[in-house]
């Protein structure tokens, strides 16, 4: 299948008044259509930086990044970014939040709004279309945030520790929900997390980054064939994978 995202020999150095920080060095990575790729690595190594590059929020100082074959030159609206906090706008209703991307991209046609509504219905937020974010639980808000990124049909989803603000119980179930939604809608996703069990339970492949400046240490292709993250966690192979990745991150 085709590559959605191609990162080739990318380096990124942050400049600031006090010093320069080399965050990424010679990173190469491909994400194929329909794939779920997780990036793990020690904290502060440059995981978020990789996503910012893929979103076009930053320009690489070396190498090249292509999205669907085209060089990324800036933000294009072709990726959906989901962050740790849901970042729902308190003054908008859930439907208005979910259609934000459509509005911004002037694609808020009746059909597209209908699609957003259907997503909300399908994933259990149908009764909350007119509610405001504060009336929803943390897990529901995170689901709404995901639907917001899906509504404008981005080529690629970028997820930056999307579950880390949730408590453990909610995290497991929202993780299941999000995984189901992404699979069901046949989306390609690049997930950043420092929670290795999360990566192992979700991803097709896991990219382990080294400490700063981040390089690709190793890429694992997982073979746990289970339908949901929770089921994966129960699989005998799970702990084996966990140990491998964990050792690699720590090494």
């Amino acid at each position, binding site marked *: 299948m085709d590559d959605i995202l191609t990162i080739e020999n990318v380096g990124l150095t942050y400049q600031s008044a006090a010093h320069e920080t080399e965050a990424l060095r010679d990173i190469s990575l491909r994400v194929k259509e329909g794939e779920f790729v997780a990036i793990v690595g020690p904290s502060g190594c440059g995981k978020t930086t990789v996503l910012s590059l893929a979103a076009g929020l930053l320009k690489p100082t070396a190498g090249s990044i292509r999205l669907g074959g085209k060089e990324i030159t800036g*933000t294009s*609206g072709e990726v959906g970014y989901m962050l740790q906090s849901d*970042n729902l706008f308190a*003054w908008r209703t859930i439907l208005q939040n979910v259609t934000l991307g459509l509005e*911004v991209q002037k694609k808020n046609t009746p059909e597209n709004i209908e699609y957003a509504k259907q997503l909300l219905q399908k994933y259990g937020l149908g009764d909350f279309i007119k509610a405001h974010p504060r009336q929803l639980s943390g897990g529901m808000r995170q689901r709404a945030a995901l639907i917001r990124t899906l509504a404008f049909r981005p080529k690629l989803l970028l997820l930056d520790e999307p579950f880390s603000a949730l408590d453990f119980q909610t995290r497991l179930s929202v993780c299941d929900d999000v995984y189901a939604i992404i699979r069901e809608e046949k989306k390609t996703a690049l997930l950043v997390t420092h929670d290795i069990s999360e990566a192992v339970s979700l991803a097709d492949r896991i990219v382990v980054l080294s400490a700063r400046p981040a390089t690709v240490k190793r890429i694992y292709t997982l073979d746990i064939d289970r339908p949901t993250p929770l089921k994966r966690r129960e699989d005998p192979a799970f702990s084996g994978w966990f140990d491998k990745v964990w050792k690699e991150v720590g090494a």
Partner: protein
Amino acid sequence: MKKPCTPRALYLRKKRNGKIKVLCLQVAVLAVFLGAWEFLTQVRLVDAFFVSSPSRILIKLGQLFRQDFMPHIGITLLECILGFVISTIAGFLAAVALWWSDTLRRVLDPYIVVLNSLPKIALGPIIIIWVGAGMKSIIMMTFLICIVVTVISMLQSFLACDKNKVFLMQSMGASKLQIFYKLVLPNAVPELISVLKINIGLAWVGTIMGEYIMSSAGLGHLIIYGGQVFQIDLVMASIVVLCVLAGLMYFLIARLEKFFRKRRGGSLQ
């Protein structure tokens, strides 16, 4: 009559009773204050010539309204509203410009700081020389007093916008204009309303001060004049009218706040 005893009904009743209680106490405070004032002057424990009294103020108000009070009120109100509206709009536009351009913000920052700490009343003579004494100069004074605070607080509220939300919009491909009116502006609404509340107070300060130093009409002029000729009743009557007007304008802004609160499903944030 049926008495609903659900927890909800009890809660609502308790809440309404609480409201009524507060309102009663508020009225009582005013009544006690006015009553004591009237009583002390009636029994001549204090001299009504120096402190006036509620009844004398009422009589004076009656007199004034039969004479030429309305034009004075009208002028002051007009000066205050114009000063308030012009400074709010100009301040808003300036804050938007400063939010938009980092360079502009950095260049103007020290000037804004200095202007902010300058007592604007010091500019009174210059204003008189430049625009002459009268309504224009008073609006100018009001404008000067309001504008700097407006710009600073509004800019502050724009800059306080969560960076992650800005990233989110950028990643969707939003333009700077879209980021402003879909995110930064609605996000700042609660602060903008507080700015309006502060500004309306400042606009009154500017108007009355302006009238003190350079006017021959308006409530501020009447207060100064009343003080000079030792007519405390006139001073007090003018102050009462001022209180009512200021209260009304504050009330209008509170309505605006309520409107936004309602539109946002019960909370401003």
